[in-house]
């Protein structure tokens, strides 16, 4: 089936929208799905909204997209999370994973879904305190390495040796924590 937005690429997603009380399914390709999501970053809300003022015409009706990957016709893989016993088939039925371990067990199956729904499936927000500590250590290490390379370039080997010892000390600290 072709994407109903671009009428060009193969539709991979079934987006359920609520139009005036009726459920309408629109089929979108990953490109158009991504474009829908990526607009958020551009923050081009102001321009679009001002159009409302100038064009008070009949409303298009309520739309409430619920993102859901289209059920492929082929057999779902027979995988079970060893930690909690949840199967991939159960997850696809309920939409709920069994435990944090399911993310590892179903990683390959979840990857395309998450990547397409969220644009780039790389977490960009806060991290737990422990990881923040590790992050600080890493950025300190990077800073020291940069200074060491500068010192070497200036043939200041004494400073470079001191910096190298500090980097090693930091690495050992990090290792002891882990």
């Amino acid at each position, binding site marked *: 089936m072709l994407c109903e937005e671009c009428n060009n690429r193969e539709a991979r997603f079934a987006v359920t929208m609520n139009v005036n009380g009726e459920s309408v399914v629109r089929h979108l390709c990953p490109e158009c799905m991504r474009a829908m999501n990526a607009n958020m970053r551009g923050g*081009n809300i102001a321009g679009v909204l001002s159009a409302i*003022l100038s064009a008070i015409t009949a409303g298009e009706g309520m739309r*409430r997209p619920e993102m859901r990957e289209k059920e492929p016709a082929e057999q779902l893989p027979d995988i079970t999370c060893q930690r909690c016993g949840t199967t991939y088939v159960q997850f696809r039925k309920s939409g709920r994973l069994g435990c944090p371990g399911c993310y590892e067990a179903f990683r390959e199956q979840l990857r395309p879904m*998450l990547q397409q729904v*969220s644009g780039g*499936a790389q*977490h960009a927000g806060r991290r737990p305190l422990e990881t923040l500590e590790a992050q600080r250590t890493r950025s300190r290490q990077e800073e020291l390495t940069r200074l060491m390379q500068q010192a070497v370039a200036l043939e200041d080997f004494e400073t470079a040796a001191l910096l190298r010892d500090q980097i090693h000390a930091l690495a050992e600290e990090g290792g002891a924590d882990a």
Partner: protein
Amino acid sequence: MNHPAVLSSRVRLARNYEDLPFDAHRPGVAETCVSRTANALALSGEDRGFALLTMASLGEDRRDALVESRMISRELAASPDSAVLLQEDDRLSVMMGEEDHLRIQAITDGLSLDEAAARCFAVEDALSRHVRFAFDDQLGYLTACPTDTGTGMRASLLMHLPMLAHHKQMGSVSSIAAKVGLNARGYYGEGNEALGDIYQISNQITLGRTEAEVIATVTALGEQLSETEAELRRNALAERRTATEDKIFRAWGILMNARLLPLKEFYSLWSALRLGAVLGLVPVSPESLDSLPVEVQDAHLRAYNEKPLTGEDLDAARAARVQSVIRAAKR
């Protein structure tokens, strides 16, 4: 800038313990969430002002009232083993044993998502010193539903948009919101209803964007809607003053004189009255009316009157409550 269309801001963080199954209905899961979270908060010394309320220990009316005030979710209220750590006056709650192990939530007045987020993060930081949340370098915070992973954050605004609703523009607003990864929907009522012209704007996407980016986008849409609403209000007064006033003054008349006030009728009259307050046509401030949609719900009316009211008695109590709140607010 003042945004009278924004009733309140809410931020909610989903967090899970890495060593427990997500399903809080499995034996022992909810109890472990509750004891572990309460202990961690106590150890951090940040537990002052929090009350620990288990769902099993609360009466049905008290649970319903907490759902009406949005302090707990309906799902939490229905799970006897679940509990909430609650700072009711500050509208800060930590739900334990929900769809996710923890839902940390803060509600603030007006357009103030940053403040709501800061309150949630303060609680999360206090807990993080003593517990480990499920986290993946690539996927962020792991949640029961994979569409919540990443920040695990929902940032939402509750907005009163009577003019956009009057011009039947909320359909377009919803499509625009969807295009930028946000969701706009009626808050009260079933299906497509938006009783009281109250709408919730929130983010749909939690992965790949920082909390600050998401908050900025939701705030930007809130500001734009608020300004659009203001423009439409000015037009209504300039072009249809008599009809606009008629609707508002009729609402005032009925609200101040009705003896029985069903909830649905209340919402529609409240919306007209609040519009009148924003326009300065009635002698009350919009803020003084903002708590009414919660105050007049069943469990709140039962608690206020200390009686197990039902049916017509509820409609009568609702009329009386509305009139006393408006009289107290009158300038």
